[in-house]
């Protein structure tokens, strides 16, 4: 007897040749699964893009000092008296003048109207120090200039500038009181800061009647200095601060929303997958029944039940994979790099980010397709194999 493999190949080749004569029903599988995979990949790409944007904000050798127990910058306060201790702590890199590369910042929210809309939306205002470009060297002023200390001057991240009314050079917006002049636009490598507006810490604190900054950001000499730096501050009983590396902080920021989008993605995909599975089952049952005489004839000629099962499943899987690849491709073409902004549920501010259709997501989508194809083919294939040959031949 020829090997089972040879039989499977022969019967599968035969099946696939009959697909063009069943094109309509076969397209049900392809299109149904393309839809599932397209939606799944798009939603996961959205979560992935959000996560990537927030986690790309972090640098492993940069630390954020927050009040002990504060989950984020918004709920943190650092007393002015604590700032020098933090800035003089061991491990912080010094600049050419021997000054620590660190900045005490104040993190606030304000609301501005979005372009073309009237109802205001939250945006992050970060009051920072004139040396912020040394602390965050990935930031570049792409238009205009840096704000001057003590002045009501702001620079806007590229994302925020695109999003909000009035954030153009020479424009003026109300932050805490009117008359904050936009003097520059900055880029930050696509990270979360591009959705913020920055100004001088002292200027914004006095305008907002705030006496203390919210956090200190510092550049360490190296990643290995994190632990000594942390130990120094946490062992000081007067401090009560938390020290987090930036990636750790931003990863925790993005978790809730990216989990939410992921969850939504999987939920929608599962619902759609169930629909596509029934479509596939329906198509394959129909295929098996229209081909029952052909299948019975092959069985009469001596082909085994196993090659019939495998070949029908392979047909379903091939169609499903075609759908999966189509859906993944559509998601890639339509959404990869597509920029949207969404409310970050944890800071209630706008964050602009790109969909990221990564190879891993494409593979995941195609695996889903294969699994749907597998089950969509399995039961019809088993029915075909159990069909008594003599009876099926009569039906012809």
């Amino acid at each position, binding site marked *: *007897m*020829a090997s089972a493999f*040879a*039989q499977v190949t*022969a019967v599968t080749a*035969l099946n696939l*040749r*009959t697909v063009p*004569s069943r094109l309509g029903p076969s397209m049900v599988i392809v299109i149904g699964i393309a839809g599932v995979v397209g939606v799944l990949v798009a939603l996961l790409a959205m979560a992935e893009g959000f996560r990537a944007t927030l986690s790309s904000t972090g640098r492993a050798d940069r630390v954020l000092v927050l009040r002990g127990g504060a989950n984020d910058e918004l709920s943190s306060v650092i007393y002015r008296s604590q700032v020098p201790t933090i800035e003089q702590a061991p491990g912080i890199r010094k600049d050419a003048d021997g000054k620590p590369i660190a900045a005490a910042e104040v993190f606030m929210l304000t609301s501005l109207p979005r372009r073309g809309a009237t109802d205001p939306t939250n945006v992050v205002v970060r009051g920072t120090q004139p040396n912020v470009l040394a602390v965050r060297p990935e930031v570049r002023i792409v238009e205009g200039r840096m704000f001057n200390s003590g002045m009501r001057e702001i620079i806007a991240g590229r994302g925020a500038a695109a999003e909000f009314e009035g954030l153009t050079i020479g424009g003026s917006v109300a932050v805490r009181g009117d008359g904050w002049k936009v003097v520059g636009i900055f880029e930050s490598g696509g990270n979360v800061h591009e959705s913020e507006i920055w100004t001088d810490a002292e200027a914004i604190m006095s305008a907002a009647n705030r006496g203390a900054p919210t956090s200190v950001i510092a550049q360490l000499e190296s990643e290995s200095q994190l632990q000594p730096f942390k130990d120094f501050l946490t062992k000081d009983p007067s401090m009560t601060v938390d020290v987090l590396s930036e990636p750790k902080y931003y990863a925790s920021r993005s978790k809730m929303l990216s989990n939410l989008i992921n969850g939504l993605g999987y939920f929608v995909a599962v619902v759609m997958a169930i629909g596509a599975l029934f479509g596939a089952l329906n198509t394959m049952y129909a295929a098996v029944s229209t081909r029952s*005489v*052909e299948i019975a*004839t*092959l*069985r*009469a*000629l*001596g*082909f*085994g*039940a196993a090659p019939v099962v495998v070949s029908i499943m392979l047909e379903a899987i091939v169609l499903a994979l075609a759908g999966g690849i189509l859906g993944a491709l559509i998601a890639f073409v339509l959404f990869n790099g597509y920029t949207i902004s969404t409310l970050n549920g944890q800071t209630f501010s706008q964050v602009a980010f790109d969909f990221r259709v990564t190879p891993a997501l494409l593979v995941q989508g195609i695996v889903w397709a294969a699994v749907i194809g597998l089950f969509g083919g399995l039961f019809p294939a088993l029915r075909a194999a159990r069909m*008594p*040959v*003599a009876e099926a*031949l*009569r039906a*012809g």
Partner: protein
Amino acid sequence: MAETLIALDRISKHYVRGKEKIEVLHELSLNIEQGDFLALMGPSGSGKTTLLNLIGGLDQPSAGTITVSGQRIDTLSGGRLAQWRARNVGFVFQFYNLLPVLTAAQNVELPLLLTHLSKSERARRVQIALTVVGLEDRAKHKPSELSGGQAQRVAIARALVADPTLLVCDEPTGDLDRKTADEVLGLLQTLNREHGKTLIMVTHDPRAAEYAGHQLHMDKGRLIEAGAQA
């Protein structure tokens, strides 16, 4: 006396439909000799196809034994029975049962895909089988491009390409006109006389039955008459 190829011993076949039990064959016994050409006749529903399917290993009896070339086939599992069919039986059906997407040659090649023959050897045998049925010039035609008689001859080529001892034909001329039927029956007769194939053919047509060496008549699941014919 030629030796017995097929021995059916008190075989019964019934189907169960709900509460009803339908007896199709009743303790039927029959010996078929090697090299015989047997015509099986009888009214519709008398069990001819059922009997033929049992002999060809497409179905299993409810009771009784079937021995072919000394081997019990009623006890074989589905998979073994399929292998047995591939080696020992060629089937010819009333409606040809060719696969429409394949050419004549590819249809004929199907049983050879179950052997270890090389591609070139398979092509050679397909060529021979098509020559035997007189259709070597139609090798590349699809079934839809063939007449009924030609299609049935392709089906006969497929039945004999793997060189089985036994050919079972269920109303092979049931769908053909007189003249074409005569050609096909003449071909079957040649296979029996010149190639030594044992043939069992179900037919409604007394003229077709005359091509056979023997005729058997069935009624209500029993053999009612067995006579030698010229």
